[in-house]
């Protein structure tokens, strides 16, 4: 039915409704556009679309735990993100090429002496890039990595030694930052565990040897004590005899040859040298034991530090277990699934009674 077929009253009423609808649609469109605009601005601020981005690259030995889009940190802030991870050609010195951008104004902290640390993020093997603040190297003159004019990046540092800059062009490579790479926590823990495992038999063997040495020493002193006790009358007798050998015309002067003093002195010197060598060996042994013990202490301390640093993981696991238990308990009570969880009913309690075997 056409509009011209309607009565004038109806036509007037309809055109009023159309106007109201038009106003509503316009208002809704404006609101939608405003919302979208706000979202765009917010996203742009968040992602740094209107900020200058300084590109950098680094080389690492392994891309394990690193992903494109992962944030790059500087002094604890998220200041950029990884834009490219790719393997180097075979035969190159480095294995993996990583490119990343740093947002304005944080690239101002990155000087020629800045470095990229590839740090373990968690126990799951993830890692992240952290750029160190530069400009504090006292051994050589550091330079800023980029130079800007009127808020636009114009030049990039090309020679660290004399601070020579070159104009940024489209095919200009990003600035290279050297990296300090540390393996993922899991790999480090594994290496630590392997080291401890290798060291343990040696430590045990060392303690066994020490125990055996102490036992032998105890046994030797025991025997020496017995020997000394037994030798006391002999020494007394010897003292009496030597007293009789002394003096002019005594038997000693006839019996003892003149070179016996020299031989005695030689023997005593050799004994002193032997004792000195033994002393040195014992000192060395005790130093080595001390070092081993220090290493063990360091190992346990490192483990303790790791556990302290990741204390939240235990509470997370605990929470996970509790939540999983609640989920299962909920499923057990679900009318559709409870049949699958049906327990055997407990037998009724009754007094214990066994038949007598004569």
């Amino acid at each position, binding site marked *: 039915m056409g509009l011209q077929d309607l009565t004038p009253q109806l036509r007037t009423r309809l055109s009023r409704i159309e106007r109201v609808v038009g106003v509503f649609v316009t208002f809704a469109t404006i609101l939608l556009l405003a919302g979208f605009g706000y979202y765009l601005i917010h996203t742009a601020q968040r992602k740094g679309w209107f900020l200058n981005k300084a590109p950098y690259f680094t080389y690492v030995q392994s891309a394990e735990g690193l992903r494109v889009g992962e944030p790059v940190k500087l002094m604890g802030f998220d200041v950029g993100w990884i834009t490219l991870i790719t393997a180097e050609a075979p035969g190159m010195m480095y294995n993996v090429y990583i490119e990343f951008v740093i947002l304005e104004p944080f690239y101002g902290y990155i000087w020629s002496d800045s470095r990229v640390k590839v740090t373990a993020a968690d126990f799951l093997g993830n890692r992240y890039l952290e750029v160190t603040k530069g400009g504090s190297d006292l051994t050589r003159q550091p330079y800023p990595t980029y130079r800007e004019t009127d808020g636009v990046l114009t030049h990039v540092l090309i020679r660290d030694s004399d601070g020579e800059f070159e104009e940024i062009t489209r095919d200009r490579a990003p600035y290279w930052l050297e990296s300090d790479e540390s393996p993922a926590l899991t790999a480090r823990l594994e290496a630590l565990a392997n080291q401890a495992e290798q060291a343990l038999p040696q430590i045990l063997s060392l303690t066994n040897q020490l125990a055996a040495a102490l036992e032998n020493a105890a046994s030797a002193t025991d025997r020496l004590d017995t020997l000394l006790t037994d030798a006391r009358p002999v020494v007394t007798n010897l003292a009496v005899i030597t007293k009789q050998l002394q003096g002019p015309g005594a038997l000693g002067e006839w019996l003892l040859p003149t070179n016996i003093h020299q031989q005695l002195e030689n023997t005593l010197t050799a004994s002193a040298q032997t004792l000195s060598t033994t002393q040195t060996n014992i000192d060395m042994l005790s130093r080595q034991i001390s070092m081993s013990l220090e290493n063990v202490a360091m190992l346990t301390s490192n483990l303790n530090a790791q556990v302290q640093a990741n204390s939240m993981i235990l509470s997370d696991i605990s929470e996970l277990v509790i939540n999983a238990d609640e989920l299962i308990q909920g*499923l057990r*009570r679900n009318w559709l699934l409870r049949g699958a969880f049906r327990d055997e009913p407990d037998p009724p*309690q*009754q007094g214990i009674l*066994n038949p007598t*075997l004569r």
Partner: protein
Amino acid sequence: MNAARSIQAGTRTALAGLGLLLLLAGCRSAPPPPPTPAPVQRATRAMDQAARLTEQRNWPAAIRQWEAAVSHHRLLNDRQNEAIALHNLAQAQRAIGRQAEALEHLEEASRINRQLGDNAEWWRNQIALMQIEIAAPELANAAATRSEQLRAIFPQVTDPNLRGMFLNELAVWHLERGEFQPASAALDEAGQAFANAGNQHGIAVVTGNQARLHEAQSNWREALRTWQMALARFENEVDLLGIAAALAGHGRALLALGDFPAAENYLRRAVFNLRALDVPERLIPALEALIQSLEAQEKFPEAEKVRAELQQERERARPPSADQQDPGGT
């Protein structure tokens, strides 16, 4: 056209609504059950722990836990479980020779079950009382009175397990008094009752008692054959005490039949098992039989060694004097 379209739209909406309804119903779980009150939890835990300790034959600890279970159920006024805890407390006390306390607690449990009208538990109490009285020579009169009283009302018992249990005890009572004919009849009936209940352990015990009956009648060949059957049944039921008793029975039968080396073999194995299980009342007769088998083979030095062990066991099994007795008990 419009009408058809609106019908289609309506159907779609209805189907979507139905699907949503089904989804909501499917995801619905019953609310969690209310938490068990702490006193009830304590009582239940005490019962569970006591049952575990009893199973491990850790008698002193089991006695403490059963005592705790009695107290907790008394506080809850749970008479039924209080009676069960008292019964089991008595069984643990009996196992370490505290017969007087065991009798007292069984009587108390029996009174409670009588008041509650729980006939099955009352019968269990009565059978346990009868077991203690039969095992103690000084309580022979009490055993006689109780067995007569129970026999009078025995036809009321319908539970085949309880029937088998009572008939087995009755047979043991007759066997103690040298009444072989009624003992044999009672054992046959007991075996039948246990078979009706599907209680294989009960059948094994009855078989063992039948072997003892043959021994008492000096029917050694039959005794040997029955002990073989009993041993196989105890092995199936993994009853360690039953296995040890059957090995000793084998040894005794072979000794009587004059097969001394075989008797020595069985008796040595029985002695080892009984020593490991720490059952002096069975170990002493086994040691005596072993000495006989060794002497019959003129192995006198070995017999002397076993005699020394027998002497030690007799010293150990001697009941403690009044001032050395454990002061525990409810």
